[in-house]
C-alpha cells in the first residue's frame, strides 16, 4: 500500500467512473443495431468509444506508478458503477446471482493484484 501514490489511486478511480459511463453509451449505441448491422456507425457508440479513450488515458497514467495489487481492483470498481447505471438507465434486474458473481469477481481481481508486482 505504501508504494502506491494517492494520485495513482485517484487516477484509477476517475478511469473507472469514466469507463462505466462509456459502458452505458455502448449499451445505448448497441440498441441501435437492432435496425441493422451498419447502424453500428452511430453517435452514441462514437461517444462511448471517445469516453473509453479518455478513460484509457487516465488508466495508463494511473498504472505507471504504484502496486498493481492496489490499482487492479480499483479498475474493477467500474463493474459496480456499471451495475448501478444498468439499474438506473435500463431498469435491469439486480439479482442475487449478479451481486454474488460480482463479489467473487472483485475478490478474484484482488487476489490477482496481490500476486502481481
Amino acid at each position, binding site marked *: 500500500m505504501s508504494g502506491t501514490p494517492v494520485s495513482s489511486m485517484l487516477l484509477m478511480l476517475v478511469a473507472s467512473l469514466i469507463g462505466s459511463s462509456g459502458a452505458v453509451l455502448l449499451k445505448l449505441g448497441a440498441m441501435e443495431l437492432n435496425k441493422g448491422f451498419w447502424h453500428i456507425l452511430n453517435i452514441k457508440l462514437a461517444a462511448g468509444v471517445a469516453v*473509453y479513450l479518455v478513460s*484509457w488515458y487516465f488508466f495508463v497514467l494511473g498504472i505507471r506508478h504504484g502496486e498493481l495489487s492496489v490499482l487492479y481492483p480499483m479498475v474493477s470498481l467500474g463493474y459496480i458503477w456499471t451495475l448501478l447505471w444498468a439499474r438506473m438507465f435500463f431498469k435491469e434486474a439486480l439479482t442475487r446471482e449478479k451481486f454474488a*458473481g460480482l463479489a467473487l*469477481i472483485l*475478490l478474484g481481481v484482488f*487476489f*490477482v493484484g496481490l500476486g502481481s508486482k
Partner: protein
Amino acid sequence: MNSPAANLTSETDGVHRRPVLLVFGCTVLGAAAQIFMKFGANRLAHPGLIGMATNLPLLSGLVLYGLSTVLLVLALKDGELSLLYPVIALTYVWVTLLSLVLLHDQPNPYKLAGIAIIVIGVSVLGRGGKR
C-alpha cells in the same frame, strides 16, 4: 415433446447464450490488447498524447481493444449490461495465463487463486440473467 413451451425455452436459451459467447471473444481480444499495452506502457518515457500516439505497441493494443469493443457491442445488442459487463473480468484470467507463457511471469498461488475465483464468479453471474 414438441409443445410450444418447450420450443420457446430452447429458443430463448440460444438467444441468451450468444451474447455471453461474444463477450467471451471480447475478453480474449482484450487480453491480447493488454499484453501489447503492457509492452508499450513500460517504455513510455514521456506521458502525454504525442508520446502515446507514437508508441507502436500501445497503438496495436488500441486496435485490438477496438475489435474487442465491436464484439462487446454485438453482445450488448441483445444482452443485459449488468450481466455482460462484469464478465469482462475474464480478461484477467487470459492476461494471467498469457503472461505466464509469453512474459515468463512466475506462477504464484495468489494469481492462480484469483483467476479461479474470477471463473467461479463469472459462472455464478451467468445464472443471474433474466429468464
